[in-house]
């Protein structure tokens, strides 16, 4: 499978904490972000990025230098207003494409590059349109 297709306008916080940062790049609602420790600003998270891991899912869209709100671990976020974004898979991982999410079935040799970050579980089972954020990053790259 490829990166999940998320419609920014349908993303919203269901429950959990609302955090704020200043975007260092353009970020769309629904994208995975990382707070760059050197600047304190939000950038797109990616499994292949120099800074491993992620800090949350963006809850609004922002250009560089604008405020971006995001949901951290423990939060539930709606990714789609009605349709399931995946009918067969629940565990979600961070993609090698900055800001994007993939199903766990994409973590295979020859397809995935980078350091795996488990993002969370899709729910409910009969319409997987929401995600419960867990966010745990492996200590090393997939093929290390």
């Amino acid at each position, binding site marked *: 499978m490829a990166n999940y297709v998320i419609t920014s306008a349908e*993303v*919203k*916080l269901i429950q959990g904490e609302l955090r704020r940062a200043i975007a260092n790049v353009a970020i769309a*609602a629904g994208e995975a972000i990382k707070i760059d420790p050197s600047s304190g600003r939000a950038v797109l998270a990616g499994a292949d990025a120099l800074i491993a891991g992620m800090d949350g899912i963006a809850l609004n*869209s*922002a*250009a560089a230098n604008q*405020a971006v709100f995001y949901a951290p671990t423990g939060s539930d976020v709606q990714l789609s207003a009605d349709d399931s974004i995946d009918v067969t898979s629940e565990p979600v991982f961070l993609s090698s494409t900055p800001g994007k999410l993939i199903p766990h079935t994409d973590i295979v040799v020859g397809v995935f590059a980078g350091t795996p970050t488990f993002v969370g579980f899709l729910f409910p089972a009969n319409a997987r349109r929401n995600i419960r954020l867990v966010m745990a990053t492996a200590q090393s790259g997939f093929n290390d």
Partner: protein
Amino acid sequence: MADLVITASQVKLVSGVPKRGIAGVAVAAGKSIYVDLADAERVKLADANGIGDSRRCAGVALCDAAANQPVEYADNGEVQLTTGSAIAAAGTLIVLSGNAGMMAPHGDIVAGWYTNVLGYMSADGKKLKLALLQADVAQA
């Protein structure tokens, strides 16, 4: 003159303390907003010839948000509206437009608009110095 042409991606807070709310409609950076007291204080597009709370501008949006998403806005300080050429002459008094979410030079006010002063343009014509004033009366 017409409504100011603002590129959302070029909007940023220069100074001041921002506020936040939850958008009730799609809001883009640079739009004039109001807080709808009749709808859980959701942030929506202000309109000088609208109805109810929509005629009372509460600030300028500082990021994009769809309905139900968090949005940050400024009601004090200074907001950059463009990184390009000046979009209004220095010192121009800026008011809420009769087009939802837009702002206009004060000379554009027409009968029926509820007067909302947003502030005035900076010396370079690119930034809005906010000084909100909401009049509960329409232009005669």
